[in-house]
């Protein structure tokens, strides 16, 4: 479904990703793990068009989307749920969710989609007319996921969904991710919370210093010393 072929990308003169190869099959849950500054977030930002790759190709269902504008990439059914939620703080929860279905292709059936998201997150349903900023961190994360779902994505990418959340909320978030995956949506997760993520995933990639150093099934990565070393250096 998604394939990165020797992609390099960065900010200005600074190269963050070097020769990254990565693939995601339809219906899979894939995770990218790695220490701080390894380039995990940049990988997602490059796929979604926020960062333009300096080299390599990104194929989505065969079509090279590298270098396309982010608003065009959204139309392919690729949605990213950014780190730290990134809601529109002064907008209501309802408006935030509506923004998720901004592209014209997604406008039809907006009401129905809103109902689906509310059904998935009843807590949000009670707060539709509150300003997004007034919600708790956990609720905001749910809105962010809901907003991503509004676009009916075929590939949903999560950037550090557990960051800054209480452990109990984190396990809720992972439950929701599991739920989304079961509906057939393909999922790509970037996380610090290695073990929980690997347990939810089918396959995983280990990213170090902007390079993929390991790729394997989630199960074998779970027991792998190398992953430990990537994080703890022991």
């Amino acid at each position, binding site marked *: 479904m998604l394939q990165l072929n020797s992609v390099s990308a960065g900010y200005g003169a600074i190269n963050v990703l070097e020769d990254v190869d990565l693939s995601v099959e339809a219906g899979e849950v894939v995770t990218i793990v790695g220490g701080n500054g390894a380039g995990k977030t940049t990988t997602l930002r490059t796929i979604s068009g*926020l960062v333009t790759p300096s080299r390599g190709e990104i194929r989505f269902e065969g079509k090279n989307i590298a270098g396309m504008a982010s608003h065009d990439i959204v139309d392919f059914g690729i949605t990213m749920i950014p780190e730290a939620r990134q809601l*529109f703080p002064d907008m209501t929860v309802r408006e935030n969710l509506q923004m998720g279905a901004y592209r014209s292709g997604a406008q039809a059936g907006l009401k129905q989609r809103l109902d689906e998201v509310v059904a998935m997150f009843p807590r949000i349903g009670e707060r539709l007319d509150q300003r997004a900023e007034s919600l708790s961190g956990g609720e905001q994360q749910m809105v962010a996921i809901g907003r991503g779902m509004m676009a009916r994505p075929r590939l949903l990418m999560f950037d550090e969904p557990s960051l800054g959340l209480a452990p109990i909320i984190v396990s809720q978030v992972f439950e929701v991710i599991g739920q989304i995956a079961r509906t057939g949506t393909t999922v790509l997760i970037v996380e610090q919370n290695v073990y929980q993520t690997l347990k939810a995933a089918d396959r995983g990639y280990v990213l170090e210093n902007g390079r993929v150093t390991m790729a394997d099934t989630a199960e074998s990565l779970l027991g792998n010393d190398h992953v430990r070393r990537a994080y703890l250096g022991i």
Partner: protein
Amino acid sequence: METVLQITANGLMLGGLYAMISVGLTLIFGITRVINFAHGEFLMVGMYIVYLITTQLGVHPYASLLLVVPALFVMGALTQKLVIERLRNSDEHVQIFATVGLSIALINLALLIFGADIANTPSSGLRHSVGVGTVGVLTGQLVIFFSSIVLVVGLHLLLTRTRPGRAIRATAQNRAAARLMGINVSRVYVLTFGLGAACVGVAATLVAPLYPASPTIGTYFVLIAFVVVVMGGLGSITGAFIAALVIGLVDAFAGYYLGSDLKEVAVFGIFLLVLIFRPSGLFGARRNLSHVSP
């Protein structure tokens, strides 16, 4: 007492006028974070268009709305597209000088074409006084006052109730997230700049019958507009409206009690105090503080 009432009435009328001119500026700043130093010249250009239409075609000044508003929209949109957009990643001083340069060029272009003499748009009955008892204002002023309310409400509805409006707000609140929603951010900026300039087009149409156009007319009004925008909290449309009324009243009262030559000291004095001591504006949220160091 009657004097006070009359001054208050004058102040509110002035306030309406200031609001009319300022909403476009605050809209542009709130979304694109660009201070448009050529804003006053947009007004000037609009007023000259009204002058030309009314004197050449002999129509009512308000009829020129149909042409002035789209013309100014295009002018604003082009400014964003051809100048500001290219400077998005440049140093701040470069952005400032771009609109300053535009302002100088437009003023002097008007001087070249129309000369330094003032250009009077026919008043078409808009300078008639209406009033209650001894308190009187001009019909044209009343139209401006109420139009400013309509404009503020209209903009508010546009921003909250329409799809492009929501895209504009989303872009202002979180640019990166807006891009992830599939919003074409540069198009939103062009649209916003156009809208802000179109607001000035409305202002120009209503102002022209009351004030003679001159190449430098914009310079005076734009300084007041900056005062209003900063005081209202940068980017806040309702804040700008209230601040405009306050400044209108200050202007009227200072003009009466301090003398017309010193009223500007009062207005700019307040501006400096707000800028220095309450940079978020009298009604602004703390979030708007990107322009000051802690």
